[in-house]
């Protein structure tokens, strides 16, 4: 569980990035944090694993305050996937890269080897390959795999699909969804609203360092005021459903709209 208690944060004394942010994310949730560039989303993520310490208020990971616990200690509970995988990758082979996170966990070598082998097979990697010689999408998958390997309770994703093609994007999101279904809390920052609607169950909208909407994706994307304040466009399917109105107003997917049309035709 992650809790923000009246958190304010600024990098310089004159500009406040986050102001009185107060919310909590329960175990097993799939949360998307959305907002325009500079709204404070990435700062929020860095506060969640203690890379940044709040100027005012407190951030808790379960019952551990990020003020008093080091990020390297919190890493056992919180895994953070950065936008740029090249900052994370530092080993000579993909297998070494996936095993890297175990260095600080003091587990038996046989257990580590078995987990690494499972992950390599699951993602379809060539374990002996140099991680820097593969495509951008593959490197992003390697970075994600090395986080998944150590099985943190919470996985934070900072724009995980940037620079990926649709197939790679779906592959990463399916992996993340599978983890969420087994109880891992997923928190992601994403600019692709279609993707957010497809995968996230809860959406937090951030604008000018404050939370202006927080609820399920279905409600939040229909909150015109929040969308306009945060300079966001809702997913096209929501726009279409809202424009059509009536029975269509509650539809979130193409299938739902098609079903309504078919039902009407039949009548």
């Amino acid at each position, binding site marked *: 569980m992650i809790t923000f208690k009246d958190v304010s944060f600024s990098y310089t004394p004159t500009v406040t990035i986050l102001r009185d942010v107060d919310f909590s994310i329960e175990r097993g949730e799939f949360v998307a944090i959305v907002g325009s560039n500079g709204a404070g989303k990435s700062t929020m993520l860095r506060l969640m694993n203690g890379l940044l310490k709040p100027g005012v208020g407190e951030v808790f990971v379960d019952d551990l305050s990020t003020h008093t616990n080091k*990020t390297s200690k919190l890493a056992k509970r919180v895994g953070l996937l950065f936008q740029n995988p090249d900052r994370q990758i530092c080993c000579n082979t993909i297998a070494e890269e996936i095993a890297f996170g175990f260095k600080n966990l003091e587990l038996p070598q046989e257990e580590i080897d078995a987990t690494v082998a499972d992950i390599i097979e699951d993602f379809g990697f060539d374990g002996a390959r140099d991680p820097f010689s593969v495509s951008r999408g593959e490197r992003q998958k390697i970075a994600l795999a090395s986080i998944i390997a150590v099985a943190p309770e919470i996985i934070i994703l900072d724009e995980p699909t940037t620079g990926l093609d649709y197939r790679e994007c779906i592959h990463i999101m399916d992996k993340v969804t599978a983890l969420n279904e087994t109880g891992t809390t997923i928190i992601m920052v994403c600019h692709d609203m279609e993707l957010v609607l497809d995968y996230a169950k809860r959406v937090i909208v951030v604008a000018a360092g404050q939370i202006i909407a927080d609820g399920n994706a279905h409600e939040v994307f229909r909150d015109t005021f929040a969308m306009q304040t945060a300079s966001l466009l809702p997913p096209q399917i929501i726009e279409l459903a809202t424009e059509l109105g009536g029975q269509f107003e509650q539809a979130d997917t193409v299938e739902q709209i098609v079903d309504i049309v078919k039902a009407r035709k039949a009548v």
Partner: protein
Amino acid sequence: MRGFLDYVAGDSILHRLNPITKIILSLCICIACFASNNLIFLVGIIGIDLVFGAVGHVFDKAVSLLKGLVKISIFLFIIQVLFVHSGTVLVPLPFGLDITLDGVVLAAKVVLKIIGATMPLALLLSVTQMSDLSNALVKKLNVPYQYAFTFTTAIRFIPIFADEMAGIMEAQTSRGVEFDTKNIFKKLGLILPLCVPLLISSVKKINSSAIAAEVRGFHLRNRTSGYKDYPIAGNDTVAIFLSVLLVLFSLYLNTL
């Protein structure tokens, strides 16, 4: 010291000086620092550096730079003191590592020279745009554009690489690597494996930069390409004269 090489826009007398004058001024201060063995003179040079900071409206930056250099110098000072054993013993220590008067004086001189010589070069970059610096080198000193570009690019990349390294350390800390330890030796040991991602991202950035320069006709640029002229004005002559005077004064002090 973050951002200490960034340009700070302004219209101070230092901003208006010719870039070549500023280079001469900085180099003369460096030469004066290394030529002089007078402690008071070296302290005075640091004072002059701070005055330049105030005149160029970058005083806060000069002070934070000074603080950063003092922190680095403490380590250097200790090493120097422990390795010079001649002269009057001030503090006797075991294993022959006595702290002597000669050691303290020499260490103080080394540290003051380094601080005094580093500050003007960093302040020069705070009050001079990189493009002006390279164009003036090409126009006034006939430096081939490729070399001037290489020089300014090297400087421009320092903060970029520093940011990249900070980002890599952040990513590794998030994976459980103890970069947030207070043990400096442990931290240094952990930094070594990060040379790989830093090197790879650096090569990628330099490659992108080279391609961007090529597509903008980098190989066609020469002395006549720039439209801006860099005349030597009255202020520049006075500044160059005073710079040379400072070097001569430092040499004169050594003869006393």
